[in-house]
């Protein structure tokens, strides 16, 4: 199927076309994989095809998926943010602290989201203002943000969040449709428009393909990167609100290891880890696939370690496939 489209759409511009068709076929492959896993799950477990099961499934990826949307843009520009899970920890801890001083639900949300944006801005400043490599900066802030959370909380925990607040992580908009899922879908649409339908989005791709050329074309590279780090901070802050509400408590170890799951989603979604290519649809599909895989294997009570092996293999296959495909095509040519 993809073979014919490639030959039919052969254009003189040899640099652009293979990349574009690869991205196109990538998403259709993800759809196939998602459908395949969905079918396999339905056959494998009698409990899978149930409205509540499918609803519970979405909690496996909504919070991480929200961050992955923003992370995709950061990675497309050739940067990375590994501090997202620690931003959740710090935002959640400060929400808990605000709660001790009697904050109401709107204040709690504001604190969570605000702390997220500030943390993101701090990352953005270090990367664009001081010209430090983002991987180094965010490995540093990863320890820093969580470290502050540990200093505040120690081995204690904050709990007793108000009932209205828990709704963000446990509430349903209607029937089995959770608030988290709706928020994720709305955010996905917004990010789709932002990346694929605006000048800003084109500039993001331009930076990822060649930052120097982009700068000479009048793209304000540093400002866009700064905004993107604020954006991952914002999404991490929102994820902190959702996760804190879902857990009903805060501990400094909250969301530990989320950053790698988020990066996995982004890369599985077809975003090039080297920057310059990727799509929001791919990331959304990847989030769904990870949710389907983890929940499906969970229904079969497959031990967690097998799940890790499965997602690990999936990731390697995903990264290797385009390369293998390219090699195969070159041999044919």
């Amino acid at each position: 199927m993809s073979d014919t489209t490639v030959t039919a759409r052969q254009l003189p511009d040899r640099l652009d076309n293979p990349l574009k068709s690869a991205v196109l076929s990538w998403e259709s492959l993800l759809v196939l994989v998602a459908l395949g896993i969905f079918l396999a799950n339905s056959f494998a477990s009698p409990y899978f095809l149930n409205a509540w099961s499918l609803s519970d499934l979405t909690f496996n990826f909504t919070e991480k998926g929200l961050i992955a949307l923003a992370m995709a843009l950061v990675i497309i520009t050739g940067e990375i943010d590994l501090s997202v899970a620690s931003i959740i920890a710090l935002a959640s801890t400060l929400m808990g602290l605000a709660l001790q001083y009697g904050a109401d639900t709107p204040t709690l949300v504001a604190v969570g989201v605000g702390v997220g944006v500030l943390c993101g801005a701090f990352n953005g400043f270090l990367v664009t203002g001081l010209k430090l490599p983002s991987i180094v900066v965010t490995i540093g802030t990863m320890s820093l943000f969580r470290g502050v959370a540990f200093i505040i909380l120690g081995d204690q925990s904050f709990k007793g969040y108000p009932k209205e607040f828990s709704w963000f992580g446990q509430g349903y908009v209607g029937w089995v449709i959770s608030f988290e899922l709706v928020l994720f879908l709305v955010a996905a649409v917004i990010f789709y428009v932002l990346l694929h339908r605006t000048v800003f989005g084109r500039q993001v791709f331009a930076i990822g393909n060649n930052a120097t050329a982009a700068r000479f074309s009048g793209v304000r590279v540093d400002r866009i990167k700064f905004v993107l780090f604020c954006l991952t901070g914002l999404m991490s802050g929102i994820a902190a609100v959702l996760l804190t509400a879902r857990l009903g408590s805060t501990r400094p170890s909250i969301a530990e290891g989320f950053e790698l799951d988020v990066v996995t989603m982004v890369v599985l979604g077809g975003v090039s880890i080297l920057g310059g290519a990727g799509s929001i649809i791919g990331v959304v599909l990847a989030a769904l696939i990870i949710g389907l895989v983890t929940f499906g294997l969970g229904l079969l009570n497959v031990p967690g370690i097998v799940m890790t092996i499965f997602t690990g293999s999936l990731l390697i296959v995903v990264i290797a496939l385009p390369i293998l495909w390219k090699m195969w095509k070159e041999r044919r040519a």
Partner: protein
Amino acid sequence: MKLWKLLTATAAAAVLLATPAFAQTRIALVVKSLGNGFFDAAAKGAEEAAAELGDVEVIYTGPTAATAEAQIEVVNSLIAQQVDAIAISANDPDALVPVLQRAMERGIKVISWDSGVAAEGRQLHLNPSETALIGETIIKLAADYLPEGGDVAILSAASTATNQNAWIEAAKAAIPEKFPNINLVSVVYGDDDSVKSTEEARGLIAAYPDLKAIIAPTTVGVVAAAQVVTDQNLIGKINVTGLALPSEFKQFIDNGASQAVALWNPIDLGYSAVYLANALVEGAEAAPGATLSIGKVGEVTLDDTNSAAMAAPFQFDASNIEEFSKIY
């Protein structure tokens, strides 16, 4: 189409894997993380209980990473499978509460064991032991091998360690009544640090020439003390005892530096958890004061917070250290 073949093959394999259980009580034993010898031993005990009860299937599961978030995903999939009961050793006493409440709303019986969940998130909690029993046991471990009585000393963890301090208080309370000829001469603190514990043990031996036993209710201290006794050729003169991991401590039972040590028995813990979960499924009421059977281990009585203590710490000596050192 290769992909289709692969998919159908996977689906077929998955169907074979998921042999549905009919008319059975399905009890999920959820642990902090898989690949931990302690929990594997608990699962062994759970299977034992299931075999005794009959018609009970144990689902042994847990995340790879010991985080609350990963455990919530596991619980979610168990809710979807409509298991009859969940017996969980929680990674976080609070974060698991909302999801476990949801499980209870959908008719699933929820108990916690080993590492508990806040009272609103479970119907009952099974502690491996309790303060008074532990305090009494650590003295008994020394007294059993001192028929004439004598001087003993305690080598504890940090002076601020909540658990150890409570056990030592309980031990002191038990001595006058139950072990009148045991004379506790000193309590020193090794801070759960091998070097400091070694120094403190040497100090005790130097300061109390008539010392007959060193009791270390901490797995670090007990090894350090046994090493000192071995190095100073005091085997047979000073008996080292306390709470120890069988795998770490086996050599000192073997060489005679210690007669016996104790710790929770994970096999009995998993066994009792399944018994309690099954009792709830069969309609037993989990209320303060209720007495529930835990099979061959005995019975437990629920306290005001619906918590129960399983038994005194399990004793390891020359007869069984070999077997348990392979487990944990």
